[in-house]
């Protein structure tokens, strides 16, 4: 085999983390290989810059290596790595001039009657298959909409809907309560949904 680590294919993330904590650098590198794409996607989703995202990936794993001994086995290694990445992405954003974001007050709530009035007459786009809907233009529109979300909402949406963590894992990763995760996720999805309606309504 090319890589000795290939023998670790059946090894769990937690076993790799324990081995890395015991000084096995190949185990640490296997964790890097397992998570670098996901950390990059989260970092790019937050920063919208390839260079910034690459720097966040590097910093994330460097910080993870330096603080391996602080990992406690009551959380998942993935949540721990995502937490470091989320903090790194937020730090990166603080150093940048950014586009104006939605204020929390502008975020939609389900009880917003104006949304219902604006929706009528309803479109049929939601019944089309994803493959038919998802043009490069639409993907760009979705990226732009996500970029306008307040950062703490954006993180929840990216971890839940793009990375596929469950609500409990997102709560653990970001140090939030479950109701807070669900509230932020719900309002973020409603906002993206409204933007999609606007996009298809204007086509």
């Amino acid at each position: 085999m090319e890589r000795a680590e290939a023998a670790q294919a059946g090894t769990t993330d937690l076993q790799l983390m324990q081995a890395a904590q015991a000084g096995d650098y190949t185990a640490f590198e296997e964790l890097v290989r397992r998570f670098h794409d996901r950390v990059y996607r989260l970092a790019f989703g937050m920063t919208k810059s390839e260079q910034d995202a690459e720097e966040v990936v590097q910093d994330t794993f460097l910080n993870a290596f330096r603080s391996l001994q602080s990992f406690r086995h009551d959380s998942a290694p993935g949540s721990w790595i995502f937490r470091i990445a989320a903090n790194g992405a937020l730090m990166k954003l603080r150093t940048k001039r950014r586009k104006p974001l939605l204020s929390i007050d502008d975020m939609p709530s389900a009880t917003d009657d104006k949304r219902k009035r604006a929706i009528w007459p309803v479109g049929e786009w939601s019944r089309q298959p994803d493959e038919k809907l998802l043009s490069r233009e639409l993907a760009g529109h979705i990226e732009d909409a996500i970029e306008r979300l307040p950062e703490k909402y954006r993180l929840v949406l990216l971890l839940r809907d793009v990375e596929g963590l469950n609500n409990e894992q997102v709560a653990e990763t970001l140090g939030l309560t479950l109701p807070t995760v669900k509230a932020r996720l719900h309002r973020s999805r409603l906002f993206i949904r409204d933007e999609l309606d606007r996009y298809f309504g204007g086509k």
Partner: protein
Amino acid sequence: MPGLSCSEALDELLDYVEGALEPSLKRLFVEHVHDCRVCEHILESYAKTQTLCRRALKRELPAGLTEHLLAVLREKTSVRPRP
């Protein structure tokens, strides 16, 4: 038990999509959506938002950067590459 208003139904969207509604509330939700074309559309499009976001943001670390990343990490953590 009275039916749900539109606002009450939309408050339950997330739990419905995630299969977390308790049975009696789920029945009221389904009844409302069945009778309300606007809420039906909101439900369908809300559920679709998740998959569209995932597909729109699908990307990986650019080709060749994995080995570069590993090399930089080895250098910064002072680990010698294995022969």
